[in-house]
Protein backbone atom coordinates (compact mmCIF):
# COMPACT_ATOMS: atom_id res chain seq x y z
CA UNK A 1 0.00 0.00 0.00
CA UNK A 2 1.32 3.40 -1.04
CA UNK A 3 2.37 5.65 1.77
CA UNK A 4 1.82 9.41 1.58
CA UNK A 5 2.52 12.55 3.54
CA UNK A 6 -0.23 14.19 5.57
CA UNK A 7 -0.27 17.20 3.30
CA UNK A 8 -0.90 14.93 0.28
CA UNK A 9 -3.88 13.38 2.07
CA UNK A 10 -5.22 16.77 2.99
CA UNK A 11 -4.83 18.00 -0.58
CA UNK A 12 -6.75 14.98 -1.91
CA UNK A 13 -9.55 15.70 0.56
CA UNK A 14 -9.46 19.39 -0.39
CA UNK A 15 -9.76 18.47 -4.06
CA UNK A 16 -12.55 15.95 -3.44
CA UNK A 17 -14.60 18.36 -1.35
CA UNK A 18 -14.28 21.27 -3.75
CA UNK A 19 -15.40 18.97 -6.56
CA UNK A 20 -18.31 17.58 -4.51
CA UNK A 21 -19.60 21.06 -3.70
CA UNK A 22 -19.27 23.12 -6.84
CA UNK A 23 -22.42 24.97 -5.75
CA UNK A 24 -23.03 26.23 -2.23
CA UNK A 25 -25.73 24.38 -0.27
CA UNK A 26 -28.31 25.41 2.39
CA UNK A 27 -27.81 23.75 5.77
CA UNK A 28 -30.09 23.67 8.81
CA UNK A 29 -28.22 23.72 12.14
CA UNK A 30 -28.15 25.01 15.67
CA UNK A 31 -25.45 27.44 16.69
CA UNK A 32 -23.55 26.00 19.63
CA UNK A 33 -20.80 28.60 20.05
CA UNK A 34 -20.01 31.98 18.56
CA UNK A 35 -16.90 34.09 18.67
CA UNK A 36 -15.94 37.13 16.66
CA UNK A 37 -12.22 37.67 16.11
CA UNK A 38 -10.69 40.32 13.87
CA UNK A 39 -14.11 40.95 12.32
CA UNK A 40 -14.53 37.30 11.35
CA UNK A 41 -17.29 35.32 13.00
CA UNK A 42 -16.49 31.76 13.99
CA UNK A 43 -19.39 29.41 14.62
CA UNK A 44 -19.69 25.95 16.01
CA UNK A 45 -22.71 24.31 14.40
CA UNK A 46 -24.42 21.25 15.83
CA UNK A 47 -27.41 19.03 15.25
CA UNK A 48 -29.09 17.31 18.15
CA UNK A 49 -31.61 14.52 18.28
CA UNK A 50 -34.99 16.13 18.74
CA UNK A 51 -36.19 14.44 21.91
CA UNK A 52 -33.01 13.31 23.64
CA UNK A 53 -30.84 16.33 22.75
CA UNK A 54 -28.08 13.83 21.92
CA UNK A 55 -25.37 15.32 19.69
CA UNK A 56 -25.60 13.90 16.17
CA UNK A 57 -23.31 16.18 14.18
CA UNK A 58 -20.86 19.02 14.74
CA UNK A 59 -18.96 21.31 12.35
CA UNK A 60 -16.95 24.51 12.38
CA UNK A 61 -18.15 27.43 10.26
CA UNK A 62 -16.83 30.86 9.55
CA UNK A 63 -18.33 34.08 8.28
CA UNK A 64 -15.52 36.15 6.83
CA UNK A 65 -15.59 39.78 7.87
CA UNK A 66 -16.45 40.99 4.32
CA UNK A 67 -19.69 38.92 4.50
CA UNK A 68 -20.23 39.30 8.25
CA UNK A 69 -20.25 43.11 8.12
CA UNK A 70 -23.30 42.94 5.80
CA UNK A 71 -24.94 39.70 6.95
CA UNK A 72 -24.97 40.44 10.67
CA UNK A 73 -26.92 43.79 10.43
CA UNK A 74 -29.36 42.14 8.03
CA UNK A 75 -29.85 39.16 10.35
CA UNK A 76 -30.23 41.44 13.40
CA UNK A 77 -32.78 43.71 11.69
CA UNK A 78 -34.85 40.73 10.62
CA UNK A 79 -34.74 38.61 13.77
CA UNK A 80 -34.01 41.21 16.44
CA UNK A 81 -30.85 39.44 17.54
CA UNK A 82 -27.26 38.60 16.70
CA UNK A 83 -25.97 35.14 15.89
CA UNK A 84 -25.82 33.45 19.26
CA UNK A 85 -25.79 30.02 20.78
CA UNK A 86 -29.03 28.11 20.92
CA UNK A 87 -30.33 29.73 17.75
CA UNK A 88 -31.71 27.59 14.93
CA UNK A 89 -30.31 28.86 11.63
CA UNK A 90 -30.51 28.13 7.91
CA UNK A 91 -27.15 29.01 6.34
CA UNK A 92 -25.82 28.93 2.82
CA UNK A 93 -22.40 27.34 3.11
CA UNK A 94 -19.49 26.35 0.95
CA UNK A 95 -17.61 23.41 2.54
CA UNK A 96 -13.87 24.01 2.34
CA UNK A 97 -10.94 21.81 3.27
CA UNK A 98 -7.66 23.50 4.20
CA UNK A 99 -4.56 21.37 4.60
CA UNK A 100 -3.60 23.25 7.77
CA UNK A 101 -6.96 24.19 9.35
CA UNK A 102 -9.09 21.24 8.33
CA UNK A 103 -12.71 21.18 7.27
CA UNK A 104 -14.69 24.40 7.59
CA UNK A 105 -18.02 25.67 6.29
CA UNK A 106 -17.74 29.12 4.78
CA UNK A 107 -21.01 30.94 5.31
CA UNK A 108 -22.09 33.20 2.46
CA UNK A 109 -25.72 33.85 3.41
CA UNK A 110 -28.38 33.20 6.07
CA UNK A 111 -32.18 32.96 5.92
CA UNK A 112 -33.58 34.92 8.89
CA UNK A 113 -37.17 33.77 8.23
CA UNK A 114 -36.15 30.24 9.23
CA UNK A 115 -34.83 31.53 12.55
CA UNK A 116 -37.93 33.69 13.10
CA UNK A 117 -40.16 30.70 12.41
CA UNK A 118 -38.19 28.62 14.87
CA UNK A 119 -38.41 31.32 17.54
CA UNK A 120 -42.12 31.74 16.92
CA UNK A 121 -42.66 28.03 17.37
CA UNK A 122 -40.60 28.04 20.54
CA UNK A 123 -42.59 31.02 21.82
CA UNK A 124 -45.90 29.35 21.14
CA UNK A 125 -44.70 26.26 23.02
CA UNK A 126 -43.68 28.42 25.99
CA UNK A 127 -47.08 30.13 26.00
CA UNK A 128 -48.86 26.77 25.88
CA UNK A 129 -46.74 25.49 28.74
CA UNK A 130 -47.50 28.55 30.91
CA UNK A 131 -51.17 28.13 30.15
CA UNK A 132 -51.19 24.41 30.92
CA UNK A 133 -49.45 25.07 34.20
CA UNK A 134 -52.17 27.58 35.04
CA UNK A 135 -49.79 30.45 35.74
CA UNK A 136 -50.17 32.53 32.56
CA UNK A 137 -52.58 35.07 34.07
CA UNK A 138 -51.56 34.89 37.72
CA UNK A 139 -49.79 38.25 37.92
CA UNK A 140 -52.43 39.96 35.79
CA UNK A 141 -55.10 38.82 38.20
CA UNK A 142 -53.46 40.39 41.25
CA UNK A 143 -55.33 43.47 42.45
CA UNK A 144 -53.44 46.62 41.54
CA UNK A 145 -52.66 48.68 44.68
CA UNK A 146 -54.58 51.97 44.87
CA UNK A 147 -51.49 53.90 46.00
CA UNK A 148 -48.40 52.32 44.39
CA UNK A 149 -45.66 54.43 45.99
CA UNK A 150 -43.04 51.88 47.01
CA UNK A 151 -41.34 50.76 43.83
CA UNK A 152 -38.88 47.93 43.40
CA UNK A 153 -37.06 48.54 40.13
CA UNK A 154 -35.11 45.95 38.18
CA UNK A 155 -32.88 47.62 35.62
CA UNK A 156 -29.27 48.14 34.77
CA UNK A 157 -27.99 50.93 36.97
CA UNK A 158 -26.03 53.09 34.55
CA UNK A 159 -28.52 52.91 31.72
CA UNK A 160 -30.30 55.90 30.21
CA UNK A 161 -33.73 54.29 30.52
CA UNK A 162 -33.38 53.92 34.27
CA UNK A 163 -32.23 57.55 34.51
CA UNK A 164 -35.27 58.62 32.43
CA UNK A 165 -37.51 56.71 34.79
CA UNK A 166 -35.94 58.33 37.88
CA UNK A 167 -36.19 61.80 36.31
CA UNK A 168 -39.86 61.36 35.43
CA UNK A 169 -40.76 59.95 38.83
CA UNK A 170 -38.85 62.87 40.37
CA UNK A 171 -41.15 65.33 38.58
CA UNK A 172 -44.21 63.77 40.16
CA UNK A 173 -45.74 65.53 43.14
CA UNK A 174 -46.26 62.19 44.86
CA UNK A 175 -43.62 60.76 47.17
CA UNK A 176 -42.46 57.70 45.28
CA UNK A 177 -39.62 55.66 46.71
CA UNK A 178 -37.37 53.72 44.34
CA UNK A 179 -35.21 50.76 45.30
CA UNK A 180 -33.01 49.48 42.49
CA UNK A 181 -32.16 45.82 42.07
CA UNK A 182 -29.57 45.82 39.28
CA UNK A 183 -29.64 43.16 36.58
CA UNK A 184 -28.51 42.52 33.03
CA UNK A 185 -31.44 43.51 30.89
CA UNK A 186 -30.58 41.98 27.54
CA UNK A 187 -28.74 39.08 26.02
CA UNK A 188 -28.78 35.43 26.89
CA UNK A 189 -27.67 36.00 30.49
CA UNK A 190 -30.54 38.40 31.16
CA UNK A 191 -33.17 35.83 32.32
CA UNK A 192 -31.05 34.37 35.10
CA UNK A 193 -29.79 37.82 36.12
CA UNK A 194 -33.35 39.25 36.26
CA UNK A 195 -34.65 36.20 38.16
CA UNK A 196 -31.87 36.59 40.71
CA UNK A 197 -32.80 40.29 41.11
CA UNK A 198 -36.46 39.25 41.61
CA UNK A 199 -35.34 36.86 44.35
CA UNK A 200 -33.50 39.76 45.98
CA UNK A 201 -36.68 41.86 45.90
CA UNK A 202 -38.50 39.12 47.79
CA UNK A 203 -35.54 38.44 50.08
CA UNK A 204 -35.07 42.14 50.97
CA UNK A 205 -37.94 41.84 53.43
CA UNK A 206 -39.20 45.29 52.42
CA UNK A 207 -42.79 45.88 51.41
CA UNK A 208 -43.12 46.98 47.80
CA UNK A 209 -46.33 47.92 46.01
CA UNK A 210 -45.20 47.08 42.50
CA UNK A 211 -42.17 45.69 40.69
CA UNK A 212 -41.06 47.81 37.75
CA UNK A 213 -38.90 46.06 35.17
CA UNK A 214 -37.24 48.48 32.76
CA UNK A 215 -34.62 47.97 30.15
CA UNK A 216 -31.58 50.20 30.12
CA UNK A 217 -32.22 51.79 26.76
CA UNK A 218 -30.25 51.77 23.55
CA UNK A 219 -31.11 49.79 20.47
CA UNK A 220 -33.50 46.93 20.92
CA UNK A 221 -31.20 44.16 19.82
CA UNK A 222 -31.34 40.85 21.58
CA UNK A 223 -34.67 40.80 23.40
CA UNK A 224 -35.22 37.10 22.86
CA UNK A 225 -34.54 36.74 26.60
CA UNK A 226 -38.00 38.20 27.29
CA UNK A 227 -39.51 35.09 25.70
CA UNK A 228 -37.63 32.86 28.12
CA UNK A 229 -39.80 30.39 29.98
CA UNK A 230 -38.10 30.67 33.39
CA UNK A 231 -38.30 34.46 33.37
CA UNK A 232 -41.95 34.41 32.28
CA UNK A 233 -42.84 31.84 34.96
CA UNK A 234 -41.13 33.98 37.62
CA UNK A 235 -42.94 37.14 36.52
CA UNK A 236 -46.29 35.35 36.32
CA UNK A 237 -45.95 34.01 39.86
CA UNK A 238 -44.46 37.15 41.38
CA UNK A 239 -46.50 38.09 44.48
CA UNK A 240 -46.93 41.80 43.60
CA UNK A 241 -47.95 43.33 40.27
CA UNK A 242 -45.14 43.60 37.72
CA UNK A 243 -44.99 46.47 35.23
CA UNK A 244 -42.64 46.11 32.27
CA UNK A 245 -41.10 48.92 30.27
CA UNK A 246 -38.79 46.91 28.09
CA UNK A 247 -38.89 49.41 25.28
CA UNK A 248 -39.13 47.37 22.11
CA UNK A 249 -40.86 48.34 18.93
CA UNK A 250 -41.89 45.05 17.39
CA UNK A 251 -44.04 42.27 18.77
CA UNK A 252 -45.02 41.71 22.37
CA UNK A 253 -42.81 39.38 24.38
CA UNK A 254 -44.00 36.69 26.75
CA UNK A 255 -42.61 38.67 29.71
CA UNK A 256 -45.00 41.48 28.72
CA UNK A 257 -47.87 39.06 28.26
CA UNK A 258 -47.57 37.60 31.77
CA UNK A 259 -46.81 40.94 33.51
CA UNK A 260 -49.62 42.85 35.16
CA UNK A 261 -49.07 45.71 32.76
CA UNK A 262 -46.73 46.16 29.79
CA UNK A 263 -45.72 49.61 28.64
CA UNK A 264 -43.38 50.66 25.85
CA UNK A 265 -40.80 52.74 27.69
CA UNK A 266 -39.53 53.48 31.21
CA UNK A 267 -40.95 57.00 30.81
CA UNK A 268 -44.38 55.55 30.04
CA UNK A 269 -44.19 53.49 33.25
CA UNK A 270 -43.37 56.62 35.29
CA UNK A 271 -46.23 58.53 33.65
CA UNK A 272 -48.62 55.66 34.25
CA UNK A 273 -47.80 55.47 37.98
CA UNK A 274 -48.12 59.24 38.37
CA UNK A 275 -51.42 59.21 36.47
CA UNK A 276 -52.70 56.34 38.58
CA UNK A 277 -52.08 58.31 41.78
CA UNK A 278 -53.60 61.45 40.30
CA UNK A 279 -56.74 59.50 39.40
CA UNK A 280 -56.88 58.03 42.89
CA UNK A 281 -56.54 61.49 44.44
CA UNK A 282 -59.20 62.87 42.13
CA UNK A 283 -61.52 60.02 43.18
CA UNK A 284 -60.90 60.76 46.84
CA UNK A 285 -61.52 64.45 46.28
CA UNK A 286 -64.83 63.67 44.58
CA UNK A 287 -65.82 61.35 47.41
CA UNK A 288 -65.08 63.92 50.09
CA UNK A 289 -66.92 66.57 48.10
CA UNK A 290 -69.94 64.30 47.79
CA UNK A 291 -69.78 63.54 51.49
CA UNK A 292 -69.75 67.22 52.34
CA UNK A 293 -72.69 67.86 50.04
CA UNK A 294 -74.66 64.95 51.41
CA UNK A 295 -74.10 66.04 55.00
CA UNK A 296 -75.05 69.62 54.10
CA UNK A 297 -78.23 68.45 52.42
CA UNK A 298 -79.06 66.27 55.41
CA UNK A 299 -78.62 69.20 57.79
CA UNK A 300 -80.85 71.37 55.61
CA UNK A 301 -83.54 68.67 55.64
CA UNK A 302 -83.36 68.41 59.41
CA UNK A 303 -83.56 72.19 59.80
CA UNK A 304 -86.57 72.23 57.55
CA UNK A 305 -88.38 69.60 59.55
CA UNK A 306 -87.48 71.39 62.78
CA UNK A 307 -89.07 74.50 61.35
CA UNK A 308 -92.16 72.47 60.57
CA UNK A 309 -92.17 71.30 64.19
CA UNK A 310 -91.86 74.88 65.39
CA UNK A 311 -94.70 75.88 63.15
CA UNK A 312 -96.75 72.99 64.55
CA UNK A 313 -95.95 74.15 68.06
CA UNK A 314 -97.01 77.67 67.11
CA UNK A 315 -100.24 76.31 65.67
CA UNK A 316 -100.96 74.22 68.75
CA UNK A 317 -100.36 77.17 71.05
CA UNK A 318 -102.60 79.42 68.97
CA UNK A 319 -105.35 76.83 68.99
CA UNK A 320 -105.06 76.45 72.76
CA UNK A 321 -105.16 80.20 73.26
CA UNK A 322 -108.15 80.57 70.96
CA UNK A 323 -110.03 78.01 72.99
CA UNK A 324 -109.31 79.87 76.19
CA UNK A 325 -110.25 83.14 74.52
CA UNK A 326 -113.53 81.63 73.47
CA UNK A 327 -114.24 80.41 77.00
CA UNK A 328 -113.50 83.86 78.38
CA UNK A 329 -115.83 85.43 75.84
CA UNK A 330 -118.64 83.12 76.83
CA UNK A 331 -118.15 83.95 80.48
CA UNK A 332 -118.00 87.64 79.75
CA UNK A 333 -121.29 87.41 77.94
CA UNK A 334 -122.83 85.52 80.82
CA UNK A 335 -121.62 88.20 83.26
CA UNK A 336 -122.97 91.03 81.15
CA UNK A 337 -126.20 89.19 80.59
CA UNK A 338 -126.73 88.89 84.37
CA UNK A 339 -125.78 92.43 85.18
CA UNK A 340 -129.04 94.00 86.59
CA UNK A 341 -127.74 97.43 85.56
CA UNK A 342 -128.66 96.55 81.99
CA UNK A 343 -132.36 96.46 82.96
CA UNK A 344 -132.15 99.61 85.12
CA UNK A 345 -130.63 101.46 82.14
CA UNK A 346 -133.75 100.62 80.14
CA UNK A 347 -136.04 102.31 82.72
CA UNK A 348 -136.84 99.35 84.96
CA UNK A 349 -136.21 99.73 88.67
CA UNK A 350 -135.37 97.38 91.49
CA UNK A 351 -137.10 97.46 94.88
CA UNK A 352 -135.36 96.04 97.90
CA UNK A 353 -136.95 95.16 101.19
CA UNK A 354 -134.49 94.36 103.96
CA UNK A 355 -131.73 94.03 101.36
CA UNK A 356 -133.56 91.54 99.19
CA UNK A 357 -135.28 92.10 95.88
CA UNK A 358 -139.02 92.34 96.18
CA UNK A 359 -140.58 89.98 93.64
CA UNK A 360 -144.01 89.36 95.34
CA UNK A 361 -146.24 92.27 96.62
CA UNK A 362 -148.10 89.94 98.98
CA UNK A 363 -144.96 89.64 101.08
CA UNK A 364 -145.24 93.36 101.94
CA UNK A 365 -147.68 95.18 104.18
CA UNK A 366 -148.66 98.78 104.34
CA UNK A 367 -146.15 100.99 106.11
CA UNK A 368 -143.09 98.84 105.23
CA UNK A 369 -140.13 100.90 104.21
CA UNK A 370 -138.53 99.82 100.95
CA UNK A 371 -135.56 101.07 98.90
CA UNK A 372 -135.90 101.52 95.14
CA UNK A 373 -132.79 101.48 92.94
CA UNK A 374 -132.81 103.28 89.60
CA UNK A 375 -130.28 103.44 86.76
CA UNK A 376 -128.90 106.49 88.52
CA UNK A 377 -129.32 106.68 92.28
CA UNK A 378 -132.06 105.37 94.61
CA UNK A 379 -134.77 106.53 96.96
CA UNK A 380 -136.70 105.29 99.96
CA UNK A 381 -140.53 104.78 99.99
CA UNK A 382 -143.32 103.66 102.25
CA UNK A 383 -145.65 100.88 101.08
CA UNK A 384 -149.37 101.52 100.61
CA UNK A 385 -152.19 100.43 98.27
CA UNK A 386 -150.99 96.85 97.93
CA UNK A 387 -152.47 94.83 95.07
CA UNK A 388 -151.98 91.15 94.81
Amino acid at each position, binding site marked *: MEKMDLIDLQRILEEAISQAFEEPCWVRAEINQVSVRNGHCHLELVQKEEVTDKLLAKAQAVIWSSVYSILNPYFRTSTGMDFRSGLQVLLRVEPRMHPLYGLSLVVTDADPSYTIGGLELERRKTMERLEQEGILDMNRQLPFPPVPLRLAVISSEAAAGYQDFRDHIGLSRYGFSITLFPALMQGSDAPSSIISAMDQVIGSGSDFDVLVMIRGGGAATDLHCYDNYDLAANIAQFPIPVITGIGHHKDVHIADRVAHLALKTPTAVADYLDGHLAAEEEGLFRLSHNLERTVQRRIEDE*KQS*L*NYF*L*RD*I*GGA*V*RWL*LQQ*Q*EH*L*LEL*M*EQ*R*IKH*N*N*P*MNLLNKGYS*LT*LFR*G*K*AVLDASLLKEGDKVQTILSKGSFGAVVHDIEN
Partner: protein
Amino acid sequence: MNRKKEITYLQARQELQELVEELEKPDADLGQIAAKVKRALELVTFCRNYLRKVQEDTEAIIETHEKD
Protein backbone atom coordinates in the same frame (compact mmCIF):
# COMPACT_ATOMS: atom_id res chain seq x y z
CA MET B 1 -113.50 91.25 97.68
CA ASN B 2 -109.83 92.04 97.84
CA ARG B 3 -107.60 91.52 94.85
CA LYS B 4 -104.98 88.89 95.47
CA LYS B 5 -101.42 89.93 94.68
CA GLU B 6 -100.11 86.90 92.76
CA ILE B 7 -102.66 84.89 90.85
CA THR B 8 -102.20 82.23 88.21
CA TYR B 9 -104.26 81.97 85.06
CA LEU B 10 -105.94 78.83 86.30
CA GLN B 11 -106.80 80.43 89.65
CA ALA B 12 -108.20 83.46 87.84
CA ARG B 13 -110.32 81.28 85.59
CA GLN B 14 -111.52 79.21 88.51
CA GLU B 15 -112.62 82.36 90.37
CA LEU B 16 -114.25 83.71 87.23
CA GLN B 17 -116.19 80.51 86.77
CA GLU B 18 -117.46 80.70 90.37
CA LEU B 19 -118.45 84.32 90.03
CA VAL B 20 -120.41 83.63 86.84
CA GLU B 21 -122.24 80.78 88.52
CA GLU B 22 -123.04 82.94 91.57
CA LEU B 23 -124.33 85.75 89.38
CA GLU B 24 -126.62 83.34 87.57
CA LYS B 25 -128.28 82.10 90.78
CA PRO B 26 -131.84 83.50 91.07
CA ASP B 27 -131.33 84.41 94.77
CA ALA B 28 -128.05 86.18 94.24
CA ASP B 29 -127.27 88.80 96.82
CA LEU B 30 -128.09 91.90 94.84
CA GLY B 31 -126.18 94.17 97.16
CA GLN B 32 -122.98 92.39 96.05
CA ILE B 33 -123.82 92.17 92.35
CA ALA B 34 -122.08 95.33 91.18
CA ALA B 35 -118.88 94.47 93.02
CA LYS B 36 -118.97 90.86 91.70
CA VAL B 37 -119.50 91.99 88.12
CA LYS B 38 -116.63 94.42 88.47
CA ARG B 39 -114.36 91.69 89.85
CA ALA B 40 -115.44 89.24 87.11
CA LEU B 41 -114.70 91.71 84.36
CA GLU B 42 -111.30 92.44 85.92
CA LEU B 43 -110.56 88.72 85.87
CA VAL B 44 -111.61 88.52 82.20
CA THR B 45 -109.17 91.34 81.39
CA PHE B 46 -106.42 89.65 83.41
CA CYS B 47 -106.97 86.34 81.59
CA ARG B 48 -107.03 88.05 78.19
CA ASN B 49 -103.78 89.88 78.92
CA TYR B 50 -102.27 86.66 80.16
CA LEU B 51 -103.26 84.84 76.97
CA ARG B 52 -101.90 87.67 74.80
CA LYS B 53 -98.59 87.54 76.65
CA VAL B 54 -98.38 83.79 76.21
CA GLN B 55 -99.07 84.23 72.52
CA GLU B 56 -96.43 86.93 72.12
CA ASP B 57 -93.81 85.00 74.09
CA THR B 58 -94.45 81.84 72.11
CA GLU B 59 -94.16 83.63 68.79
CA ALA B 60 -90.94 85.35 69.87
CA ILE B 61 -89.39 82.02 70.93
CA ILE B 62 -90.40 80.30 67.69
CA GLU B 63 -89.10 83.20 65.63
CA THR B 64 -85.70 83.05 67.35
CA HIS B 65 -85.38 79.35 66.67
CA GLU B 66 -86.52 79.55 63.07
CA LYS B 67 -83.71 81.91 62.19
CA ASP B 68 -81.06 79.40 61.01
